[in-house]
């Protein structure tokens, strides 16, 4: 399982990070779905179709490693605010024990949140096949979407404030079914543009034959 890249260097600049680092270090993202390819599947039927759960790995593209850093920064910012609030509140009681406990609580919570978010970042993946785009995501609830290029209505590429700071963008694919829309976050700007153009071209080509 290729991990997108080493998590950030020890983020010494954030007070909540020390707690965040240990959980992410063992990057043993537990095997997502039992790797067994469907034994009942008549594999001879479509030998070209890669395993849809993406265990074979190499064709799946992943968001930029900066997405992990971005999520950590978000946790860090929220954590700092929470830390200030908690410390201030506990300080009002004037007991150093309360201050210590609240700081520890915030740090632990931020660490847990960071752990979950890092695992979520690592769970994202997309695979461009001949006729459709596969997008997988999710840690607790795992999702795998298959969207045929011919069914795309349009493609969005947008970037929020935080995303722009990390030079990332999110690509969104819209179909006529509201529930069928998929997105891929944390793409490098060049990759987002490439994906957008490729999807648009493919949508045109495949959609025209409809």
């Amino acid at each position, binding site marked *: 399982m290729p991990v997108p890249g080493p998590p950030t260097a020890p983020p010494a600049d954030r007070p909540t990070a020390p707690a965040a680092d240990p959980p992410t270090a063992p990057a043993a993202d537990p095997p997502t779905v039992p790797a067994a390819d469907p034994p009942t599947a008549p594999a001879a039927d479509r030998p070209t179709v890669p395993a849809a759960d993406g265990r074979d790995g190499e064709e799946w593209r992943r968001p930029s490693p900066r997405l992990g850093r971005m999520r950590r920064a978000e946790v860090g910012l929220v954590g700092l605010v929470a830390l200030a609030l908690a410390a201030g509140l506990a300080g009002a009681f004037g007991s150093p024990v309360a201050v210590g406990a609240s700081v520890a609580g915030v740090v632990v919570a931020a660490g847990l949140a960071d752990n979950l978010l890092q695992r979520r970042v690592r769970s994202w993946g997309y695979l461009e096949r001949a006729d459709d785009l596969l997008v997988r995501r999710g840690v607790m609830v795992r999702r795998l979407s298959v969207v045929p*290029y011919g069914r795309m209505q349009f493609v969005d590429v947008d970037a929020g404030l935080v995303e722009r700071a990390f030079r990332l963008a999110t690509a969104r694919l819209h*179909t*006529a079914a509201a529930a069928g829309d998929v997105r891929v976050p944390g793409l490098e700007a060049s990759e987002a543009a490439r994906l957008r153009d490729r999807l648009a071209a493919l949508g045109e080509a495949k959609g025209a034959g409809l």
Partner: protein
Amino acid sequence: MSRPGADLGSGNGGWHRLHPLSPVVRFSRALVGLVVVLGVNTAQARSGAGARIGDIAVAVVALVGAVVSWLVTRWRVDGVTLRTETGLVRRGSRQVPLARVQAIDLIQPAAARLLGLAELRLRVAGSGSHVRLAYLSQPDAEETRSRLLALAQGARPDAAPPPETPLVSVPTSRLAVSVLLSGSGFLALSVVAGTAAVAVLLPGAVAPIAGSAAVVLIALVSPAVRRVTSEADFRLADAADGLRVRCGLLETVAETIPRGRVQAVRQVEPLLWRALGWQRLEVVVAGSVGHRRREEPARRVVRALMPVGPPAAAAVLLERVLPGARAVPRPAPRRAQWKAPLSYHFLAGGHDDAYGLASSGRLRRSTAWVPLAKVQSVRLVQGPWQRWLGLASIHLDVPGRRQRATLRDRDANEARHLVTTLPELCRRARAAEASQPQAQVLQRRPQPAAPPLRATR
């Protein structure tokens, strides 16, 4: 001057007005409101002449506005396009190529019905918007409708309308009984019975609960009443261009469900109906799909195909709207009852080369059929509890908000197999559909097919 068929009056270049009484119907609701306000004010006699003059002025302005809007609205058929012009200040002109018209509905709200008027509503492929001609006199509306339909199908305008064969007709009495026996009707009955029981046993306690019981009752009864009035006198007929639906008690609707536009079919069997062997069939028709960036709530996308009826009639209709469906539902694995104990008994799903189907439900069984050619995306979703049990769900999304068939809680291996094979089946089904000439017209894609419309970077 408002007879489109008759005195075309060469002087006005073939332009027609709407019926002179249309402003009355269009603003009947506003007028009713104003009349009520006026009546209340007069009865209370608390307001002086000034307030009354104000009310009257508002009413007059509304009426004048309605009349002006009628005066400046006109329409004509220009060879193969329908042109409408509206608006006094902001003049709007619209041209509808009749070849792109999917269906023409005839709608009669209660007020229009009293005055013998009807509205024509043209559904246009691609763009989700309707074009309305409100209102024409009823004979005119029917004549114009068949003329426009004939033009839309490339026939001569005076050709006879295509013949129809009746398929289903539902007596209103049976519809009323069926609504009483459905979930909300039954709940309403039990609320009444409960209140009555309390009244008998504890006369003192009635007053406090009567109010809330009434509120619950109104909330339960009004949708049921709406369903009875909108689907009363239901008749379904088979015509060359699709299925014709006629129904309604106060507001009557005559509409066509075009061939090849059915996105999904739902078969609903509430608990009490099953004892009588009754079913309800609904279709999901592509309403406003893909014409805006964000999808809009398409009005009345779900239409009843059979409000209530026996399984034999349902089977005939299913064969009619889903020709050649052979998919056999297979129940979910036994361990799914740990995850869905209340609905396990109805969980089933399956597919064949052209259709997918999935059923679920706790008390009422709901079975959804989707033509694989309409599927927009295939999704596999596996929650933590499902992973523990080795289960996963497959969603087959079709156009529209929350329209899909969900094969819930299948075996995880089977689900993974499905998510690899179903997209290929969908592709083949699409190709097969596109090769049919009829379907090609109906499947014309909206113009903004896929270009990158927005890039915010």
